[in-house]
């Protein structure tokens, strides 16, 4: 699995070696690539800071100010995550067909991706020790200086992590930008593949795109530095004070309202409009149900394959941490940060030349899903395995269980919920995947995303609306889960303490 995850890199290097350096250079250093490079870099350079400002600002308003309706706004700000970027793009472009170019790309990407910053930053804000802010205030700092001098530095890890995610999404997004005819490396690679099937030109573009991804990863790890911000001292944190907005209440409400309308209102209205326009006929289209079933089947298969591959990796990382397991893990995070299109292209080429029997098979598609979404399974699985500590398995052995029975009866049983969570995460991710599925799906296999894509590419906006609705419904549970994770901290702390009355018999007994 780890070796497989290096496939895209091997593929690009091998292609370059095969066509020779001069030819590779000619394919890389040409005006078209310069144009794509400018587009892509500008997109990232403008969208990421915008998402950061909106994400941090939104999190701060919700968590730390007297914003009216903070609870509802907190949920609203997370909800755009449930709308896949290409669905959002479809909604906007069918409402305003003239949308095109960098400006529109930035607008759509910002509306789709700012929750990726908002959610982790909000979680970090909720976890911050307000004592630090109080200390800064007691040392004569005003609220603005406290925010920039004390709060923001502590949010750096969450902010950087979120910004990296936004950047990687921008590099790998195909559908959203293709619909508004804004060319990035990813859309160009897909065009190249579609029009000429020209392997070498596409793979050189892939190479540049991979370098951009590496650059982002490097930039993020450099910016993150070695700093760790942890609460020093013990005891439970007191709830932070909220800053009173006073005269700023109205501007804040209006800004959030505008954001909410742009990110949620427009897609909802447009999709709703198309649903009404299409009427019952759109829902009874003959391939809607088969497509849904195929999607669910692929999502389940992809989930199972991914979880099965992720289990030993997580096991190694938790139970036997060492250089080897860390290397495996890192390789994996790098691969999965590679755009789906690069991976898909690599798999297409390799299967054609090495294992032709695999080309355009479900097995290859499932493999692609596993490589793309492995980290989504690793995170819950590692947490789950960490919660089934080795000491419990040892306790079972000390009570006379054979090692294998101890493993199955105790450890696997305890990891079961985490395994289900991992399966669900991958399932939902596969259900909404577009780019790799477009390239790799066997003939006749359609998913909600690919069917939606072909309908909206044919400008059958009404026909696409039911698919858009189903895609949003399918990503809603994951959005909800992520939202819960970012806000569950305070409630978890309250329920962790066992009932104090439960210890009464013990003290009575000793008396």
């Amino acid at each position, binding site marked *: 699995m780890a070796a497989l995850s290096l496939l895209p890199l091997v593929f690009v290097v091998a292609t370059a070696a095969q066509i020779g350096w001069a030819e590779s250079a000619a394919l890389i250093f040409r005006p078209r690539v310069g144009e794509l490079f400018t587009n892509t870099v500008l997109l990232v350079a403008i969208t990421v800071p915008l998402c950061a400002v909106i994400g941090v600002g939104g999190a701060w308003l919700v968590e730390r100010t007297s914003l009216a309706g903070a609870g509802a706004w907190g949920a609203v700000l997370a909800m755009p995550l449930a709308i896949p970027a290409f669905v959002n793009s479809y909604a906007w472009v069918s409402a305003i067909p003239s949308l095109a170019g960098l400006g529109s790309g930035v607008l759509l990407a910002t509306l789709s991706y700012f929750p990726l910053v908002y959610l982790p930053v909000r979680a970090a804000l909720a976890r911050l020790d307000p004592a630090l802010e109080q200390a800064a205030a007691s040392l004569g700092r005003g609220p603005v200086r406290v925010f920039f001098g004390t709060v923001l530095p502590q949010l750096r890890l969450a902010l950087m992590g979120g910004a990296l995610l936004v950047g990687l999404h921008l590099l790998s997004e195909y559908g959203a930008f293709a619909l508004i005819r804004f060319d990035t490396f990813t859309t160009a690679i897909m065009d190249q593949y579609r029009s000429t099937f020209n392997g070498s030109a596409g793979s050189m573009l892939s190479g540049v795109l991979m370098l951009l991804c590496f650059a982002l990863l490097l930039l993020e790890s450099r910016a993150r530095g070695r700093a760790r911000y942890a609460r020093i001292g013990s005891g439970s944190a007191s709830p932070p004070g909220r800053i009173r907005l006073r005269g700023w209440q109205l501007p804040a409400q209006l800004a959030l309202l505008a954001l909410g309308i742009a990110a949620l209102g427009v897609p909802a209205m447009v999709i709703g409009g198309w649903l009404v326009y299409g009427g019952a006929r759109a829902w009874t289209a003959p391939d809607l149900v088969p497509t849904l079933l195929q999607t669910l089947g692929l999502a389940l298969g992809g989930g199972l394959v991914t979880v099965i591959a992720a289990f030993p990796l997580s096991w190694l990382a938790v139970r036997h941490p060492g250089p080897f397991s860390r290397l495996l893990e890192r390789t994996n995070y790098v691969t999965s940060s590679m755009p789906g299109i690069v991976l898909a292209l690599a798999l297409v080429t390799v299967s054609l030349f090495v294992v032709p029997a695999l080309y355009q098979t479900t097995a290859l598609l499932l493999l692609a899903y596993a490589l793309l979404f492995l980290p989504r399974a690793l995170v819950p699985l590692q947490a789950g395995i960490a919660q089934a*500590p080795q*000491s*419990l398995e*040892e*306790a*079972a*052995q*000390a*009570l*006379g*269980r*054979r*090692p294998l029975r*101890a493993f199955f009866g*105790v450890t696997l*049983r*305890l990891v079961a919920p985490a395994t289900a969570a991992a399966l669900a995460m991958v399932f939902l991710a596969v259900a909404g995947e577009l780019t790799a599925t477009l390239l790799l799906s066997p003939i006749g296999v359609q998913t909600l995303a690919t069917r939606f894509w072909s309908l909206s590419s044919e400008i059958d906006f009404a026909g696409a609306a039911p698919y858009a609705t189903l895609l949003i419904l399918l990503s809603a549970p994951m959005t909800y889960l992520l939202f819960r994770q970012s806000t569950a901290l305070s409630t978890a702390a309250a329920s962790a303490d*066992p*009932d104090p009355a*439960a*210890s009464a*018999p*013990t*003290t009575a*007994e*000793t008396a």
Partner: protein
Amino acid sequence: MTAHNLGSLGAVPSPGTGPLPTAHLQVADVTASYGGRRVLHGVDLAVQHGGITAVVGASGSGKTTLLRIIAGFERPDSGEVVLGSATVAGPGAWVPVHRRDIGYVTQDGGLFPHLTVARNIAFGLDDLSRADRDGRVAELLDLVALPREFADRRPDQLSGGQQQRVAIARALARKPELMLLDEPFSALDTGLRAATREAVARILTDAGTTTILVTHDQSEALSFADQVAVMRDGRLVQTGHPFVVYTRPVDRGVAEFLGEAIVLDAWLDGSLASCALGYVPVRNPPARGRVRLMLRPEQVQLVADSPIRAVVQEGVYFGAESSVRIRLEPRADADPRLGDVVSEITIRHWNAALTRPGQRVALRVVGEGVVFPA
């Protein structure tokens, strides 16, 4: 030091005595490594039938590794472990954990979070019929003084002390011949810790279960066990009755690890040491020369009058007693060979009124001291 331990002084094995023939557990010359680093260097330990041995040491001293080797979770590099008449670990011999008849309780109790209290306790009782199992669970809940209604609770509905009792009940359920306790009380808060410790000691003594307790808390080791083994850097540096290791530590490190110690420059002449506290008889074999003399703070008492005088520098009030730092005045008959020594020592006293700074006091040493090479 409890009355129980003082009362059983007659049974003190003299230091240096080899393993007794009745030893139930015999650890012989065990070495072990962890991640390429040697953590146990030739450990020997014998525990008698029904005895309670505390292995005490700072964190990282190797005490948990020793316990895990005895349990069978780790293999020794060399040496052997003999339990009863069977060699459970050694050259060519290996008995896996689940076939060793042991009970094992860790710091966090290690209760299975997905099972009720009753099913946790009955986890090792597969062979019994359901009725027998229920009866045994009820019996064990009584034994660890938990209400029988707790049987249907989940571990997360119990306090830390209760969870620990369930863990002990679970370990006792199979009537193991050897009970291994790995800091089982250290996660509990102070009041609960002492109470749980006493209850567990009583249960284990009544059941006659041979027990090894690993702890970093010296007062826990001294009060819980009838044999204390002090571990340092992977070696057992002293093994013996709690009273013996406390009052006759083999070196200054052991002395200071097991409790507060007053260490003074002294001149030894035969069995009498001359120091800033006057002449103090010592237990060591007679010798002459410059030494370090160790006394326990409780051996230095305040008296109405004495040639040994001191001035209180500082007192720290702890309620039942105060910790008092005093500066000893130079003795008129100070031994010239000691040179000019300024001595400040810390003692304990119950009367806070006597511990105000500037207060002049007279002192007396009771009992014998221990000397170490200077």
